[in-house]
């Protein structure tokens, strides 16, 4: 299915596609091939494994993060894709990054999954309501996962990024939507990653969104090719 948007007066077509995500600029296709996508997923999975290992040491229990499923969509579709059954995510951790690669990363969870995750990480019973202490745990874990992911993207592009302080959004989808794109009209694309966290025998679903510009996607795509060849 195609969703057309206009960016800087030229048509852009973004779609969740198999085998390749294609984005057209000035009529010329800019393609993330299936190989590039697989390479990217593999690299992100490695970064997640490292993050999971750190979390395992920290909480004293095995933590693993599932291999993400990656799709590249227009920003509007990507935000809609964060919703579960048409319902926007209950809460999100966001972090802006800047440099050669620029954008905003988002980890979205529903409140039940978040409560379960906090309970499993802290070894306590699942939190039925998210108090400040629980939000801080989610902020810590979310920041680790998001920065691992963005660092992977920046490393394939051979670039370094700077991170802003992470933010927490609770039951505020409008604020979240504004936060990911506000003040940066060039951020038009979203890399959506569905993943799972396994902690103490439980599996928790989470969605991640990396909001980026066409230029950033272009940079990443060009960076992936040599990596794919090396593999």
């Amino acid at each position: 299915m195609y969703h057309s948007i206009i960016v800087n007066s030229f048509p852009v077509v973004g779609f969740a596609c198999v085998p390749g995500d294609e984005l057209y600029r000035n009529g010329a296709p800019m393609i993330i091939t299936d190989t590039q996508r697989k390479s990217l997923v593999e690299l992100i999975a490695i970064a997640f494994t490292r993050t999971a290992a750190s979390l395992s040491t920290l909480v004293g229990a095995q933590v693993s993060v599932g291999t993400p499923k990656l799709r590249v969509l227009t920003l509007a579709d990507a935000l809609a894709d964060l919703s579960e059954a048409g319902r926007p995510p209950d809460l999100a951790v966001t972090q802006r990054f800047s440099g050669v690669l620029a954008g905003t990363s988002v980890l979205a969870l529903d409140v039940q999954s978040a409560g379960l995750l906090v309970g499993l990480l802290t070894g306590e019973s699942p939190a039925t309501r998210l108090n400040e202490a629980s939000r801080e745990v989610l902020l810590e874990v979310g920041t680790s996962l998001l920065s691992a992911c963005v660092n992977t993207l920046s490393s394939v592009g051979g670039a370094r990024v700077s991170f802003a302080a992470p933010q927490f959004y609770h039951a505020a989808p409008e604020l979240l939507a504004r936060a990911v794109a506000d003040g940066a009209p060039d951020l038009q694309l979203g890399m959506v990653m569905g993943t799972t966290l396994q902690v103490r025998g439980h599996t928790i679903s989470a969605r991640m969104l990396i909001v980026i510009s066409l230029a950033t996607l272009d940079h990443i795509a060009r960076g992936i090719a040599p990596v794919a060849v090396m593999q």
Partner: protein
Amino acid sequence: MNRELTQLEPAAPARPADGFDQAILQWLAGTTNQGVIITDRQLRVRLWNAWLEAHSGFTVDEVVGRELQSLFPELVRRGIDSYYRSVLQGNVHVLSQRLHRYLIPLAPTADGDLGVMRQHASIAPLTAGDAVVGTVTIIQDVSERVLYEQTVRERERFTDAVLNSLPEAVAVIGYGGAILAVNAAWEQLCVAQRELRALTHDPGHNYLEFCRQAAAAGDATARRALDGITAVMERLLTAFTMEYVCQGREERWYRMDVVPLAGDTERVVVMHRPISRPRCSCSEIPLDGR
């Protein structure tokens, strides 16, 4: 004033020398109600603010120029140094109290048995242009909050223990009929009797709806229960009691009591307990208590 402040000035972006940046640094060093540590790339302390002086026992003179790891060897033992190394690569880290308890050992600020001050910390790179020239750590004292949460948890545990000690099956029903809380006897009753499975404490389970459906199917007892609960919920009655029989392999009698939740304007407490034989079928206590 922190004597190292002037050495940090070259790191600031090129802006008019209006003293604004210096004023911010002075505020961080002397006024803010949070701990602020600024280090260079070797993690040597360059700024140690007044808040930290007050809570750590270390003066500025004792810490400036020394490595964080040598001041607090436990940072290495607890793996916290890896966060600092990551920050020097450009990452930002949040260290939550629940997972770490504290960043550096500081004197307790709240009554109780917390041992050390409980802290929420953020560590971020200090950048000059594209280069990371050091780290900035912000520490918040969350001891009072931790103690409050402990008190709430203990109170909840105590309340649960009292409720679970009762032989009666007890549930708190919200306005509209949602089952908000139940005790162990209630759960056991619902699990033991298949027809009551819909009354376990799960999201979406609704006591009034359960009674309404049974009443619509011709169950007169459910109709009486529905009317009684609704009347107490609307505060038309101060209590409602009824005795009823459950037909199974053998006849079992129960008594249901419905009372308003103390201090609440809508919710009610429903209790069921087995009785040996019926005394009266139903009683209602009107608002005036007669």
